[in-house]
């Protein structure tokens, strides 16, 4: 597991994150992939700082998303605004615990777990705590895979708003919490995107991208691959 003789960073090679073409590691700054012309960095530029920033933004936005009402259901003139949590509780109290569970997982558990997971990844890398990289990769994959499902609540709101629009009798209106919640989802999705999982392995192997030296052989090897 710790055989790291053939790491891209040490051989002066890297792969284009977009088309997976093997190219020579750009030591300073970036270059364009010759095949798909995406920008290629040895590691995503400022990955940790950006992920930190987006994670903190997401955690801050989580507060208004949960405190402010996400929608208001008016029925026969009476209605009160409901937040994410009260919506789940309402579903649970009316006996629809299956739906309540789905909404709870999508709009409360997923964003919170995602932010916690990202923080855990960042802390482990920055403090160089000893960890099992496979375990950490699992966290990373879960974090980047589940994010999109939190938009469930917003889609549901947009459907309800268009369906239940009968003036005084019944009406559903979106609330400011929905905007905050949408921002949380987008920000955390971007955070998972800017996080470079290769940094996990760098921390594990004890490599630093900034101090990498390109061996002479790398250029020949890469040249042969085109």
């Amino acid at each position, binding site marked *: *597991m710790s055989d790291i003789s*053939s*790491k*891209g*960073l040490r*051989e002066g*090679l*890297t*792969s284009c994150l*977009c*088309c*997976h*073409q*093997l190219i020579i590691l750009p030591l300073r700054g970036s270059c364009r992939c010759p*095949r*798909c*012309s*995406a920008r290629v960095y040895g590691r995503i530029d400022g990955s940790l700082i950006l992920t930190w920033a987006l994670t903190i933004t997401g955690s801050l936005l989580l507060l208004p998303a949960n405190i402010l009402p996400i929608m208001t259901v008016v029925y026969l003139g009476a209605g009160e605004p409901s937040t994410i949590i009260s919506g789940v509780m309402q*579903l649970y109290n009316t006996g629809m615990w299956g*739906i309540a569970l*789905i*909404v709870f997982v*999508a709009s409360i558990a997923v964003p919170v777990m995602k932010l916690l997971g990202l923080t855990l990844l960042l802390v482990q890398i920055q403090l160089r705590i000893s960890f099992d990289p496979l375990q950490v*990769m699992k966290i990373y*994959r879960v974090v980047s895979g589940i994010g*999109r*499902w939190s*938009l*469930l*609540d*917003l*889609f*549901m*709101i*947009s*459907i*309800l*708003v*268009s*369906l*239940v*629009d*009968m003036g005084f*009798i*019944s009406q559903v*209106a*979106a609330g400011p919490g*929905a*905007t905050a919640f*949408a*921002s949380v989802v987008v920000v955390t*999705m971007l955070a998972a995107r800017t996080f470079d*999982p*290769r940094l996990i*392995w*760098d921390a594990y192997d004890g490599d630093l991208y900034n101090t990498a030296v390109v061996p002479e*052989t790398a250029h020949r*090897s890469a040249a*042969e*691959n085109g």
Partner: protein
Amino acid sequence: MEQGRQEAVINWQRACHECDLLLTGGLAPPGQKLICPRCRCTLHRNGNHSIYYTIALSLTGLLLFIPSATLPLLDFSLFSFGAESTLINGVYSLFKAGFIWLAALVLFCSVLAPLGKFALLLFICWGSAWRTLDRPVSHAVRFYQHIKEWGMLDVYMLGVLVALIKLRDLGKMEVEPGLYCFGAMMLLANLSSLSFDQSAIWHRLAQRRMFKGQDL
């Protein structure tokens, strides 16, 4: 091709994009997938006839987009009032109520990105047959990689189902034919992105470049 010059240098073919491990084998054999030995991420999935399947699936998806965007998905009636929900309808209601950012996000994730995915896949797979389209095709692959995760038809479908159950005790809720088209389109969106194998496209482009070199 260049076997004479490889005494000292190992011919690396691929670096794992998740753990940076260098590998000498770049592609999986047909019908199998290549998994990184160190971090276990899937590096390449080599499906059979990837290009043709993707053309068929994305073309069908594009055609199905017409009925699922125009026909109503759900019909809700309360007393004598009734309302229908289409894909665009919800976005428009949000926009009218002043939630522009929300409306834009819903529009992008449920209409524009899936539509763009289908169109790009069709263009990539079809366009890779012509030499003059080499450049646009390689740009299209890049765009596709960017918008790939923003197409959320499956999440939208779940949202529809949750709304369906939630409103059931408020009024009368009916499923309209548009929802079936939408469900089929969701399935096609997942299948087409699963069957799409970008290295088949790169292989096609590279092969043509090589043949062109021999002709000259």
